[in-house]
């Protein structure tokens, strides 16, 4: 019986590779990832879903095979070999559509009150221009959060990703005060949304959440494993967020792909609060040649969300 399943899986694997399928609307970040995806110990459910191949053809695959593989807690300590991930956020294109926030919350089964990705309305000084500032975890190369954790619940992997193991976290919140970017969130109670996720917990999925522990943006390593980009990247309608690999020197937002080093050098990319010495893996492109007025960011927002920005210098000046 087991052998048969194995054979089945092997067959499916062959089919996958033959057709050069890339699951869903995801974008391959690296060639090895397709294999990683098919290697997953998924089982067939009999239910078929339609996906788009790279050739633009629609084909049917078993739903069970599309499920994201979840690695164990031990495995999650190992970075993807030979990789070093990086994110580039183009501030010139952001209009606070908040699709990144919503997709991230959905993907990680988060309640509305927890945001791994936050969008700030920043203005560096009185005379400078305000801009929308999406802020994920910076996955710093010198992460203070990792240094201060007393139990090793948060760790830095060889591929640059900083993860949290919420089976280990004792909830002392020292990492939250250690992080100078207010990146981390705490589960102040048990949220119903956590229950939507029926899969076993994996630090790579960052889900299901657990009361009394800390969590944060994880760069979606479970998606990267299967050749997809993080939820926020694929959800952004403006293509603001680019994701990629420093060693491959490539970043993509799903529609455009750039040479990372050239993009940073041509567009004067920078890291936020470089002065703190945390060495973030997230770069920003300055908010120049804007595609939208800052005001557009208030467009279709919920009243509740709008209210967040009422105390910013910009809002005070424009809607006193």
């Amino acid at each position, binding site marked *: 019986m087991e052998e048969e399943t194995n054979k089945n899986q092997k067959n499916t694997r062959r089919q996958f590779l033959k057709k050069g399928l890339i699951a869903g609307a995801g974008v391959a970040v690296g060639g090895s990832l397709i294999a990683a995806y098919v290697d997953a110990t998924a089982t067939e459910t009999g239910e078929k879903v339609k996906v788009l191949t790279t050739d633009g053809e629609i084909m049917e695959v078993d739903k069970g095979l599309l499920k994201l593989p979840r690695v164990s807690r031990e495995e999650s300590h190992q970075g993807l070999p030979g990789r070093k991930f990086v994110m580039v956020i183009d501030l010139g294109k952001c209009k606070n559509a908040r699709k990144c926030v919503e997709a991230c919350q959905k993907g990680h089964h988060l309640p509305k*009150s927890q945001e791994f990705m*936050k969008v*700030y*309305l*920043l203005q560096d000084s009185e005379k400078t221009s305000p801009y929308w500032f999406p*802020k994920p975890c910076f996955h710093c190369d010198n992460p*203070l959060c990792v*240094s*201060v*954790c*007393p*139990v*090793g619940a948060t760790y830095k992997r060889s591929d640059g990703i900083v993860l949290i193991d919420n089976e*280990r*976290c*004792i*909830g*002392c*919140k*020292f990492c*939250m*005060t*250690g992080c*100078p*970017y*207010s990146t*981390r*969130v*705490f*589960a*102040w*109670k*048990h949220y119903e949304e956590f229950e939507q996720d029926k899969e076993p917990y994996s630090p790579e999925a960052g889900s299901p959440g657990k*009361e*009394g*522990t*800390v969590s944060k943006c994880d760069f979606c390593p479970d998606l990267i494993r299967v050749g997809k980009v993080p939820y926020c990247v694929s959800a952004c309608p403006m293509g603001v967020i680019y994701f990629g690999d420093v060693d491959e020197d490539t970043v993509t937002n799903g529609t455009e792909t750039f040479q990372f080093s050239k993009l940073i050098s041509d567009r004067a990319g920078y890291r936020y*609060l470089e002065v*703190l010495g*945390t060495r973030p893996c997230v770069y920003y492109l300055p908010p120049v040649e804007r595609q939208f007025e800052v005001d557009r960011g208030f467009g279709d927002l919920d009243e*509740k*969300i709008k*209210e*967040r*920005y009422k*105390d*910013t210098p910009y809002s005070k000046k424009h809607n006193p």
Partner: protein
Amino acid sequence: MENEQNNPLKEFAPQLERTTMQGYTWILFLLLVIGVGFYAFLQQVLHGHEVTGMRDNVVWGVYIVNFIFFMGVSYAGALISGTLHLFKTPWRKPVIRMAEFITVISLLIGPCFILLCIGRLDRLPYLVLFGRIQSPITWDVIAISTDIFGCFIFLYLAVLRDLALLRDYELLKLPKWRKKLYKALALGYTGTPEQQQRLNRATDIMAAMVISIAIIVYSVLAWIFSVTLQPGWHSTIFGPYFVIAAVYSGSAVLIICMWVFRKVYHLEAYITKKHFVAVGIIMLVLAAFFGYFTFSDYLTKWYGSEKNDELLIQLLFKKFYWPFIISNYVGVLLPLIVVGLARFRTINNITFTAVVVVVALWLNRYIIVVPTLESPYLPIQDARPEWLNYTATWVEWSLTATGVAVFCLLFTLASKFITIIPVSGVTGEEKKEDVLI
């Protein structure tokens, strides 16, 4: 055996033998406060930390403030009793045991507050099982557990002679089990010259140890804050600043204890104005140091006015105006005036000042912890009021009151078990000289 009539215990025995109606009411009241605190704690366990005022920005609130506060008070005993002992300060006898009690009791309460702050109490053993030495919390775990151990030994050595005395005093009207307990705890100490010499030597060593461990504990506690990059915390002065603030608060608590026990147990003959002035002067010197460190810390922040330091100072002078004024002005100047000028130096004035100092130092810790967390590098942009501003809930206040109540209760019980003034080695006529100087 000594002459029973001349035994100094004769005078102090009623303290141990009888508890007045008032005494019982007091204990009942404390138990009531503790009961409410227990209910509050249950709420927190059942409903999560949402029942507190802490949220994602202000992740540490009153609990951490209480933690620093009680640890600081404990330091008083350690440093004051340790130094008084080592330097053989002549007037130390009537107050030294109180200082030792303060140390051990608040050292038991302080760490409980950090536990209240921890999201998953069930995983507490992980601190040992998976402890990482790189984390200042691990430093803290090691330092505090060493401190508790050391302070217990120091206290035990200090009370050993009295335990032997209690064991030998036949007129003591106490239940059998109490007498048996004294006998067991006295470890067969009879006061032979060899025993005396060993005990003195051990106490000297422990006094020195306790002083140094306490400095380490308090510095480590300060480093939990100053190793982070947060504006207002990331300061090199925090180690010594916390140490000074700790002894300062401890000296004030000692004065309050002296006043209370003097009244309750009628110790007017033993604890005199002289003692209040002496401890008051320690408090005054510490006030000056504390003021100097505070000034130094804020001056450099304000003068250079980095953007985030400036925001923090604005916050301190607007939203936290009164706590700031009370802790850093009143709390510094009042002891300088009251103890500094001879004409204000009365027992009640000094005690009142001590109460103000204790409040001021609690507030000082509050305005170190909360405003910094309310002004992070990235401005807090949130529509939820509880996310913007921290306000402690009834659960936190109730547990704070419980901390104070447990302190009072343990102190009361301790004073029922061993005399609050060391009586050993004091006999008959010598007593007045030795104790009163």
